[in-house]
């Protein structure tokens, strides 16, 4: 079940705008029928050389950011297709949150349903985070969902928005399908009205 309360982690900076889901996970990896094991294909075309070796200049292969559970990305992250394989791949790799100045709608929905927290900050704060992260790769951020706050060691803190329902689901581990199923009577009544 998707669950999120707090997280303390390093950040991995990917200062690229409009990162589309074809970059997050290329379509040729979508022939799987499973949700797991996609981490190895995360950002495959940016991450590996043609012979399969890691590209030394791509941030996922930068030793300084190993173990980061927060991805720091440019605006409109996750645009493109509806593939839920994108958050599955990010989670399978080890990310628990993505910070950006905006997210594509379907990607945001898909992430929330899998416990990957999309954190939207204003562009100035995001730029500050990128700077901080470049000068101090081991800097750690603290994310607290209950107070909707990101804390940084330099004393900066930033509030982020999240809809009340998604927040409740993540904090309490509420199952969205279970929530809809509670309305069985209403759904049945709605269907009866449709026929008439």
């Amino acid at each position, binding site marked *: 079940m998707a669950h999120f309360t707090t997280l303390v982690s390093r950040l991995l900076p990917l200062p690229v705008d409009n990162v589309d889901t074809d970059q997050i996970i290329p379509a040729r990896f979508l022939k799987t029928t499973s949700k797991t094991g996609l981490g190895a294909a995360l950002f495959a075309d940016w991450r590996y050389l043609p012979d399969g070796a890691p590209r030394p200049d791509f941030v996922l292969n930068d030793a300084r950011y190993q173990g980061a559970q927060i991805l720091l990305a440019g605006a409109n992250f996750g645009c493109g297709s*509806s593939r839920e394989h994108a958050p599955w791949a990010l989670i399978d790799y080890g990310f628990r949150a993505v910070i950006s100045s905006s997210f594509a709608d379907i990607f945001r929905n898909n992430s929330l349903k899998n416990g990957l927290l999309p954190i939207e900050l204003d562009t100035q704060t995001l730029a500050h985070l990128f700077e901080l992260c470049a000068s101090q790769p081991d800097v750690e951020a603290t994310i607290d969902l209950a107070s909707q706050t990101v804390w940084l060691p330099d004393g900066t803190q930033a509030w982020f928005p999240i809809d009340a329902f998604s927040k409740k689901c993540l904090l309490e581990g509420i199952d969205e*399908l279970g929530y809809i199923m509670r309305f069985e009577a209403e759904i049945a009544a709605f269907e009866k009205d449709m026929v008439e």
Partner: protein
Amino acid sequence: MSRPQTLFEKIWQAHQVVQEPGFPAVLYIDLHLVHEVTSPQAFDGLRKRQLRVRRPDRTVATADHSTPTHDGFPVVMDVMAAQQIRQLEQNCQEFGIRLYGMDSPQRGIVHVIGPELGLTQPGMTIVCGDSHTATHGALGALAFGIGTSEVEHVLATQCLLQHKPKTCEVRIEGRLAPGVSAKDIILALIAQNGVGAGVGYVFEYTGSTIRSLSMEERMTICNMSIEGGARAGMVAPDETTFEYLAGRQFAPRGKAWEKAVERWRRLPSDDGAMYDKRISLDASNLEPMITYGTNPAMGMPISARVPDPDRLTDAGERAALVKALEYMGLQPGQPLLDHPIQTVFIGSCTNSRLSDLRAAAALFKGRKVAPGVRVLVVPGSQGVKRQAEAEGLDRIFREAGAEWRQSGCSMCIAMNGDKLDPGQYAVSTSNRNFEGRQGKGGRTFLASPLTAAAAALTGKITDVRQML
């Protein structure tokens, strides 16, 4: 008199089952389209919870993304793709879902067969685990893409939890010049407003240009709403819509048809209805459009020159353009006209319908594909394929030297054997020019079927208006 409502608000309101304060609405879904790539994990979820599909009669499946389009069809050579398609067949059998499978004469790209079979109707809510579900909005439906978790929700409950999106009127006025098409309208719109303009919004396309377009042209425009950031794009139903739908397999008949049309006539946005945002486009001075970069907003009139990153003030945009031009192997300030290409792809849920194929074939007739250029013509469905063959379009394409394929997503998504080689340039009628979208290292120029056909015949990017 109640408050004037938009087309979107009318459909939303009519499908709201529950709305708890502060929570997303429980929205009823009239039609759920399913394909092989985004559904297996959802069916697994049902099995784990021991749930059935609530309304198999409102669920329709087909295989399109990972299916090959070559002549060995329907033998799927790729082991994983074959397994995924077999899984879809098993899931549909187990849960009692109608499947237009590999051997079905009605199989095709999910967004082509929905309207073609009359499954897609005005006023409906339609979802599919595919972002180009927006296509169906052309018939006056509220249609949008969902993720696999949501596919599971809809399979189990026929409902979806949704926050109400905002509305944006996209008004398009003016008469299109010869050689300029619906694809050029949507590419121009995205180039002017960016890939993020529609985030959080539903687009409603209005104006005299939209009214004058055929259903298939409207589908091309609604299809790429997602490339503008909007999950859904809609066009209010009118006589064009009703004429298109009449007599289709799943369209209502007789008395039911008359009642349905009466209901559908009440759907268009009321006079004075408010939108949260408005944008507009003058279609009368549009040229054929082409993209030069790696997102659909990096597009320009075909006679223009590739923009210079140094002239951009925003650092993020500058960096993106530098990266895109490097990937594309293009120089700032260079024209794209006469740029050589190796492949032409005519197909995808954006431009694979009969009118697209007719437009391309009209240009191909009596001409030959340029030496060394590979041309794939991939009809959107087996139905489109049969119609095109009945009109002799396949002969025109083959005689010109193009490949006439079985239907499917083909080279738009490059997970079915059809793909570009690294470094190759292609003019494609599809919807995405993302890095590697058409094959790792492949370089995509998005354009209309006419512009693609012109490039096929000359071997380089060409202004089709000079060939008409």
